[in-house]
C-alpha cells in the first residue's frame, strides 16, 4: 500500500529524529539498557538458583516407606489422609517392583548386580510433593511425626530443611523478577516517551505542514514510532552485549552456569524494541495533536 519513496522517507525521518536528539537519545538508550540489564541479571540469578535447587533435591519433599506387611486398608487410609492434608500437592505410590526398576535404571551398567538378588529388598513408598508456598519447617516436622505413627509405616524421610529454605528464597526471587520487570517496563516507557516528546515538539512545524498537504495520521506518527523502536532496539542490543561479556567473565570462574540461549536473547531485544515503540505511542497520544 505504501510506496518505496514513502518508506524511505519514514525510515530516514525516524533516524533523523534520533540524530537530531543524539544526546538525550543516547542517555535514554543507556538508561533503558541498564534497566534491561538489571532485569536480565535478576532473571538469570533466578534461573540458576532454581536449577541448582533442582540438582540438589530430589523430586519429592517427603518419602514414606511402607512395611512389606502393610494391610491394604491401612495403605488406602494413609493415601486418603495424605490427599486431604493441607499443603500436600501431589502423592505418588511407588510399589516395590517400581522402586526396583527405578533403582536399576539408576545403576545403569551395574544393574546386573541386582540379578543376584533372590527377593526384592526395596520397600514400597508414598512420594509426597508439598505445595512450595505451604512448607514451613515446624509444619513439615509435625507432618513427619504424624505420618510415622500410621500403622504399617516403617520410616518417614523429609527433605532437608535448608533446601526448603533455599527453595523459598528462589521463589522470592521470582517475585523480585516481576517487580523489577514492571519497574523496567515503566522506566523504559518513560525515557523513550520523553525523547519522543522532544522530537514531537521539535517537529511541530513539519507535522503541521504534513497535515496541511494531506498526510494521514498514521503516516505522521510512523517516524516517531520508528525512532522510539530504534532506541528500544539499541538499548536491548547493548544490554545483551554487556550481558554476554559478563557471562563470559563469570562462566570462566563458575562452572555449570545457565545462560540465555540465542532465541531468548533475540526475544529480549524484541521486547525492548516493542517497549520503545509503545513508549513513543504514549508520547504521541499525549503530545501530538492531529
Amino acid at each position, binding site marked *: 500500500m*505504501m*510506496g*518505496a*519513496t*514513502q518508506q524511505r*522517507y519514514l525510515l530516514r525521518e525516524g533516524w533523523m529524529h534520533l540524530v537530531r536528539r543524539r544526546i538525550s537519545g543516547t542517555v535514554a538508550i543507556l538508561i533503558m539498557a541498564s534497566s534491561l540489564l538489571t532485569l536480565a541479571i535478576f532473571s538469570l540469578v533466578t534461573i540458576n538458583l532454581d536449577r541448582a535447587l533442582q540438582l540438589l533435591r530430589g523430586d519429592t519433599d517427603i518419602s514414606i516407606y511402607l512395611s512389606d506387611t502393610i494391610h491394604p486398608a491401612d495403605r488406602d487410609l494413609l493415601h486418603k489422609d495424605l490427599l486431604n492434608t493441607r499443603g500436600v500437592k501431589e502423592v505418588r505410590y511407588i510399589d516395590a517392583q517400581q522402586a526396583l526398576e527405578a533403582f536399576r535404571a539408576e545403576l545403569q551398567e551395574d544393574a546386573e548386580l541386582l540379578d543376584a538378588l533372590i527377593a526384592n529388598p526395596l520397600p514400597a513408598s508414598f512420594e509426597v510433593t508439598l505445595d512450595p508456598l505451604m512448607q514451613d519447617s515446624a509444619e513439615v516436622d509435625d507432618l513427619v511425626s504424624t505420618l510415622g505413627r500410621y500403622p504399617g509405616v516403617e520410616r518417614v524421610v523429609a527433605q532437608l530443611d535448608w533446601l526448603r529454605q533455599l527453595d523459598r528464597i528462589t521463589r522470592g526471587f521470582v517475585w523480585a523478577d516481576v517487580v523489577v520487570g514492571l519497574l523496567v517496563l515503566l522506566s523504559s516507557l518513560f525515557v523513550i516517551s520523553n525523547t519522543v516528546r522532544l522530537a514531537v515538539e521539535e517537529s511541530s*512545524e*513539519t507535522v*503541521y*505542514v*504534513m*497535515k*496541511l*498537504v*494531506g*498526510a*494521514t*495520521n498514521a*503516516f505522521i506518527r510512523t517516524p516517531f514510532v520508528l525512532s522510539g523502536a530504534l532506541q528500544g532496539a539499541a538499548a536491548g542490543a547493548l544490554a545483551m552485549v554487556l550481558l554476554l561479556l559478563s557471562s563470559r567473565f563469570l562462566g570462566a570462574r563458575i562452572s555449570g552456569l545457565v545462560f540465555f540461549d540465542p532465541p531468548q536473547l533475540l526475544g529480549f531485544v524484541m521486547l525492548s524494541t516493542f517497549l520503545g515503540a509503545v513508549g513513543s505511542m504514549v508520547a504521541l497520544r499525549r503530545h501530538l495533536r492531529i
Partner: protein
Amino acid sequence: MSQPSHDPSASSNVDARTVISLYHASLRYDESLALDDVSFRVDNGEFVFLVGPSGAGKSSVLRLIMMEEMPSSGEVVVGRFLSTRVRRRDIPHLRREVGVVFQDFRLLLDRSVEENVAFAQMVVGVRRSQIKKNVAQVLNWVGLYHKRKQLARTLSGGEQQRVAIARAIINRPKILLADEPTGNLDPEVSQEVIDLLFRINAAGTSVVMSTHDHLMVRQYGERIVSLDSGRLVGDVDRFRVRKSHSKRSVAERVVRTDEADAVRREVESWEHAILDSARARESSLSSDSEAGREGP
C-alpha cells in the same frame, strides 16, 4: 445561478457547480464567537476575495473550509466532505483537494525548495520518478526552477510565497485557499503573487483569498465576501454579466485592470451595495446574496 431557490439548510441538495458552502456556520473559541451565522457559497472556478478588518474572522472561515476547525453550529460543505459527517480519517483526503497558502509561507526552512514542494507529493504516496517530473514542472511554472537546490531560508519573501504556492498546487487541488498571501510582501512582489493566483484560477481552480488590502480588492475583486466581527456583511459580484464564464484568460484580466477607471466607478456602487446588503441580510441572507449574484 442555476438554483434560485436554494435552501441553505438542505446540505444534501448540493449544486454540482458549488465547491464550498457555508450554511449558517458559527465558530466559537472558548468564550469568543469568531464567526456568527455565516453563509455563502463558492462555485467551481470562482475567485473570491474574503475581506474585512483584522479580527473579522477571515482566517476562521478558511480554517473551517480546510476543516482545521469544525463549526460550532451550522455546516460546512467542501466538495464531497460535510463537516457534520466527516470522519477524522477523511480529513487528509479533504486536504489533498484543498491547497493552502499563508501570510507567513510556512515552509520547512532548513530544506531545499525542491524538497519543500516534493514533500506534498511524497506524503500522499506519489512515486519518486513522478514526483521529480511534477516538481520540475510546477517550479518552472512559478519561475523558481533555477533555485530548486537552495534552502528555503535563503529565498526572499516573494520567492518563499511562490514556493508555498507551488507546494499548495502540486497535488492539483480543486480549491486553493490563500490567507493574506501578500500580507508580508512589497507591492511589486504582491503583484507577482496575485498574478500567480489568477493564473491558477484561470486553469480552473477555485481560489478563496483573504486580504485587508482594499486597493487590491478594488483593482481585482469581482466576487467579494465581506466579514466584520465574525458576521457576513456583504457578498457581491461586480461582474455579474460574466458570471457564467468561470474560466477566463489571464489576458482578459489584464485588460480589466487597464479599465481601472471604469472599475473604480463600479467599486463605489459596490461599496454601497455592501452597506445595503449588510442591512438587508438580517432576515434573509441567502436569497439576498442569491439575488445579488443572479445573472440577467
